């Protein structure tokens, strides 16, 4: 453990946003926004510097308080964490710029929400902390930080629908984290350690481990709105303010996915069965179909986008069955692991960009129209050309048409599916894409349709439209450094690895 480079960046990545958030509390409305925006830029800059550090030196660690695990807590920034942190920084900085303009837009805007800034900085610190954390209990604290911030941001608009959605979200989040913590208690009781690295070595298969895996997976599935527990997501994401919706769907739900991935791959390898992978994949598959279908049926733009998140998160769950090898297959001979991992990471990034852009565009449309019923989107192209373009590009990435990042993710997923011989997932991917194409083209058809009446669109600031467009373009641009990114990720031990599942053992892997 000592052969890894110790670096101050992991500590700064959590500490700096908290410090700036605390500082911003001392200012009044405008000052809060200014400090908040500067804080966001600083944090993003720091994240980029840390990313470069990892790219140069490989995994860096920071042993907090100088106490080595298992007694103390270690922060670890490997390339997987670096990619997630970098994604948060890039998407976050654009959303911050948008929010800065959006809240200042005078008449048509929603007004000023000074609390947005400290909450968003705390959220950012929580996300960074989560990606860096290497300790089961510390992960619980960070997901609680994220949960409280996310709900507080979601109810910021003050609308009653947002309040109802927010309370439902919060109760789901608390339930999820308590279930997670129950699993942590059992793991600690049976091993006496909380450090992920050590746990991967000492955890023994058995009833307790399997049950802990079950409750932890249940808790995280609730948190990331995995299929049977997705009920809270669409109302919460659609009722929030536009920048908040973008943050919630682009970044927050990815946190729980990240923990799930890390724990399944690094810690619980010993008690995961092939069937458990199939089950979680099934949940993902149902989410893809159900979420896309629900999105197709909605009549308001933000609800369409929110339901589409459920579907897109389903794709993330679908990589799990590919990563878990059937009994008798070894990781060396499984050539589908690398495509599956690539699919997962690119799905995360492409969805973050595309969905952020989609929600920001929806916010602009609400700003222009005063509502977001889709039948009023007629002649969007004539009135808000850039926004229409952003929606089009983001939609293309969500469907998975080339040359978008979404295409790359889905293509790699299909490749992994066929290489592994689990062909039964392929129709789901295709059907999901078709349904997505259905609602995206429905939107685009309306956007190009001639207007029935003139002058319904109020002008919106150009700069906001451009931010949305840049994010949409981002979901395409990520394809270019793909080779480099995969190489970079392969330097991490986790990436490209699979779980050689056990044959026997308690398999209540039913969440």
């Amino acid at each position, binding site marked *: 453990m000592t052969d890894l480079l110790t670096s101050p960046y992991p500590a700064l990545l959590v500490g700096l946003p908290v410090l700036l958030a605390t500082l911003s509390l001392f200012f009044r409305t405008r000052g809060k926004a200014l400090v908040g925006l500067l804080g966001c830029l600083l944090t993003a800059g720091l994240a980029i510097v840390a990313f470069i550090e990892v790219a140069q030196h490989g995994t860096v660690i920071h042993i907090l308080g100088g106490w080595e695990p298992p007694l103390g807590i270690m922060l670890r920034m490997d390339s997987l964490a670096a990619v997630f942190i970098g994604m948060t920084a890039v998407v976050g900085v654009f959303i911050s710029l948008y929010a800065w303009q959006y809240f200042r837009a005078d008449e048509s805007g929603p007004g000023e929400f000074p609390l947005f800034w400290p909450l968003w900085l705390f959220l950012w610190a929580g996300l960074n902390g989560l990606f860096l954390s290497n300790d089961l209990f510390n992960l619980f604290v960070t997901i609680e930080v994220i949960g409280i911030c996310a709900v507080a941001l979601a109810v910021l608009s003050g609308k009653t629908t947002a309040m109802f959605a927010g309370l439902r979200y919060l109760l789901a989040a608390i339930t999820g984290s308590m279930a997670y913590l*129950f699993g942590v208690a059992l793991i600690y*009781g049976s091993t006496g350690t909380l450090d992920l690295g050590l746990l991967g070595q000492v955890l023994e298969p058995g009833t307790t481990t399997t049950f802990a895996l079950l409750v932890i997976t249940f808790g995280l599935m609730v948190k990331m709105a995995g299929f049977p527990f997705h009920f809270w997501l669409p109302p919460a994401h659609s009722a929030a303010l536009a920048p908040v919706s973008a943050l919630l769907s682009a970044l927050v739900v990815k946190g729980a996915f990240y923990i799930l991935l890390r724990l399944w791959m690094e810690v619980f390898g010993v008690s995961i069965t092939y069937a458990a992978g199939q089950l979680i994949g099934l949940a993902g598959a149902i989410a893809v179909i159900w979420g896309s279908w629900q999105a197709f049926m909605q009549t308001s733009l933000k609800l369409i986008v929110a339901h589409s998140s459920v579907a897109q998160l389903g794709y993330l769950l679908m990589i799990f069955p590919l990563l878990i090898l059937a009994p008798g297959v070894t990781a060396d001979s499984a050539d589908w692991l690398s495509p599956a991992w690539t699919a997962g990471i690119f799905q995360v990034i492409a969805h973050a960009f595309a969905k952020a852009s989609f929600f920001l565009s929806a916010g602009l449309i609400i700003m222009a129209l005063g509502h977001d019923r889709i039948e009023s989107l007629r002649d969007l192209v004539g009135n808000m050309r850039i926004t229409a373009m952003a929606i089009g590009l983001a939609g293309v990435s969500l469907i998975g048409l080339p040359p978008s990042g979404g295409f790359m993710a889905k293509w790699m997923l299909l490749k992994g599916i066929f290489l592994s011989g689990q062909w039964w997932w392929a129709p789901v991917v295709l059907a999901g894409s078709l349904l997505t194409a259905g609602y995206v083209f429905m939107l685009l058809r309306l956007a190009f349709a001639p207007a029935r009446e003139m002058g319904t669109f109020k002008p919106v600031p150009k700069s906001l439209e451009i931010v949305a467009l840049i994010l949409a373009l981002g979901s395409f641009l990520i394809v270019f450094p793909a080779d480099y990114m995969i190489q970079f990720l392969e330097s991490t031990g986790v990436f490209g690895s699979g779980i050689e599942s056990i044959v026997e053992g308690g398999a209540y892997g039913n969440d």
Partner: protein
Amino acid sequence: METYQIYSLTSAVLFVIGLGGVFISRHFIKKIIATIIMGGGVFLSFVSFAERDALTFADPVPHALVITGIVVAVASAAFALALARRIYQLTGEESFTKDK
């Protein structure tokens, strides 16, 4: 049967009661209380394992974790309560209705 076993079994029961309560109870306050009961169960299991691992003193790490956990749980519960009261103030609703 030793002391810690009694409480660790109790912890599972409390957790399940809380879990069921979150889903089945209708009133906001009851749902919030159910989450705290769930938390109580989880913390009880932590502390019972600490008692099992006692040497000269009981394992202090779970104690510290539980203190942290209790405070975190209370902060979220207070927030949930604020939301529930705000909803009541705005709409007069005390539980989730079907459509919302």
